[in-house]
């Protein structure tokens, strides 16, 4: 009876996998077809070629878009890492008055949706003269309540004995943070980095309203730029560009997967 069970299990797994992957497969397939065939709905076409990819790289600034996204996502991730780590460290390891209340205030900002912050943020960036710059794209995201919360939860798992021992060894805060806290929370930090990178790789609204030239436009906004409004879109090239944009995120996920799994397995103090 076990083999029946296995078959059953695999059937459902494959079924769900197909549903999940189908749009991506369709996209890859469409990116190989000439636009004329896509427009005519001729999906069983045999005119398969990489022409769309060559067209995308040659005729669209897709590589520039990918570079911009890479720069902004990396900068934001680094910024988040620095500021959220420091803030979370203070909330966990340093005692001061109204700590709980202050942390609560921090959490409240999580309830405020980004859309509500857009107008003040936009006005600030505009008056700084940071429109259409990496500074304007990244600095508003250097700190987030979510990041502080996530890292705080990870830091709380560190046994208090470790802090006591480090004090006995005469470590100051910097050495304790760098040498013990961060390595100990490695899997959370990697998850955090991947999450932040992917979130900002997929950012749309903020870059849409603050970038004005291809020199700073990231991928998602750039992709929308390729779609024609009044006239006819070159769907083949657009699909190819979308697939190209997908590649870096896949690389990040594949590299990070190992840590993802570890992050899920780690629980409690491992003494």
């Amino acid at each position: 009876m076990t083999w029946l069970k296995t078959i059953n299990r695999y059937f459902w797994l494959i079924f769900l996998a197909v549903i999940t992957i189908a749009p991506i497969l369709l996209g890859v397939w469409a990116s190989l077809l000439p636009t004329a065939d896509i427009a005519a709905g001729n999906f069983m076409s045999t005119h398969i070629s990489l022409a769309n990819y060559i067209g995308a790289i040659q005729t669209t600034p897709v590589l520039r878009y990918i570079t911009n996204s890479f720069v902004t996502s990396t900068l934001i991730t680094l910024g988040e890492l620095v500021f959220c780590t420091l803030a979370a460290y203070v909330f966990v390891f340093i005692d001061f008055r109204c700590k709980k209340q202050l942390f609560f205030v921090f959490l409240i900002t999580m309830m405020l949706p980004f859309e509500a912050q857009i107008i003040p943020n936009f006005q600030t960036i505009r008056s700084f003269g940071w429109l259409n710059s990496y500074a304007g794209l990244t600095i508003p995201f250097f700190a987030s309540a979510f990041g502080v919360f996530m890292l705080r939860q990870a830091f709380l798992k560190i046994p208090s004995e470790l802090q006591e021992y480090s004090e006995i060894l005469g470590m100051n805060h910097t050495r304790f943070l760098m040498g013990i806290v961060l390595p100990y929370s490695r899997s959370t930090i990697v998850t955090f980095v991947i999450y932040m990178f992917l979130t900002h790789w997929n950012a749309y609204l903020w870059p849409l309203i603050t970038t004005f030239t291809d020199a700073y436009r990231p991928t998602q906004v750039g992709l929308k730029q390729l779609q024609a409004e009044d006239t006819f879109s070159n769907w083949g090239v657009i699909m190819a560009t979308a697939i190209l944009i997908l590649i870096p995120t896949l690389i990040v996920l594949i590299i990070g997967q190992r840590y993802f799994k570890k992050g899920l397995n780690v629980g409690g103090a491992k003494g």
Partner: protein
Amino acid sequence: MITMIQALFKVRRIFFVGLAAGLIMICGLLQLPGVVQAGKSVPVPAGRTEITFWHAMNGPNEKVLQKIVAQFNQKQHKYWVTPIYEGSYGLLQSKYTNTLHSNVTPALVQIDQGNGAAMIGIDNYVPMQKFIDRDHFDTGQIYPSAIRAYSIKGQLLSMPFNSSTAVLYYNKDLFKKYGIKPLSQSPTYSEVRAAAQQLTQKSHQDVKGITLQIYDWLANELVANQNVSVVDHGNGREAVATKSNMNTPEMRRTFQWVQQMIKDGSFQNYGTGSSASANQMAGFLSQKLGIFMQSSAAMSSINKSAKFHYGVCYMPHPDGVKANGVAIGGASLWITKEKDKAIQEGAWQFVKYAASPVAQAQWQVGTGYIANNKRSLQVPVLAKAIAKNPNLKVPVDQLLGAQQNAASAGPFYANVADAARYLQIAEQQIYAGGNIATALATAQKQTNQAIAQTNQTSYDLLNFNR
């Protein structure tokens, strides 16, 4: 325990490196925004004044625009125009409004016909008439319809650049295959309805006869063709508009025609928005759809992708009603006031070139927009293209044949976007079989409220009679 601490202490020096690098980068960003902002995609040659030009043209049309800009940049050595695509007309307009007096404000901007009144409200433009009067620029070379569309009280505010009219496209090969008579140059509602019905029946539902995208502009063009203006006060051109004319017998007649065709089963509803326009285009190109109405600007794409003969004719009019002609669509070029005199001058020089016979002729050939300049028809590139494809001439003829009145001048008021939203909602109800008069009355009431609200708060801004 201590050994563990020591072990932990040793590992991952990478965190130090990463954090240090991050801090350095952040400091760099905070300290040197100026440096970060540098790095333009195309460097401006030394000694030239840069004219940033925001536009809403993409796809094949953007390529043609870039060509015209490159010609201008090559022709003279004082200015350098940088064209930048900023998204759809709506997005472009809101980006422009929100970034006035900032580090990215362009010197020249392409604003669609519907947003002209909003530009008056923003009041950050130099009227084109000022340069025209100074240089004695001959506006007689531009079609009067185009001039009138962008003039208030005889003052040209912006230079017409890409003008289009809505036209009706149909698949000539399918008409021939099923033995249907080609449509006349200015067809009537019953003529179009009969053709759509025959096409659907004779192809055994293989081909859908017709569609009319849920798109306010097309509905407005159909009523302009019956000499009805969209808003009161001469389409908002004699004084600030106060009332919408959405629920008129003419508009109702148009939608009765649509509902009849829906009942016939010859009508395909593609819905609304950019996906609808893409889908109806795909349907037409794959020969699943016989007739549709769209901007003449779509012609270059159809020309490139259609593997069949297509026909173009004027927008249809009701039986027994004389066709009034339609209003011009498209956009015009506005010069920004806040820029230096030298930059404004450069923008004007480019505007003059963009309106020239040669530039407009290339523009029409490459895009399907109408060449605004009368003399463009004599430019060989356009003359040859029309000889090869007479369809290119249809939108021009439709424009020239139009009566010169308020309806064909097109609407001029600030709530175009509100009206579009309400009218499109009404259209959806009507397409679903709802009562035409009720749906239009609701839409008209909502539009009137929006207009009243705008006039209450910003009448002084919008009032060009001041």
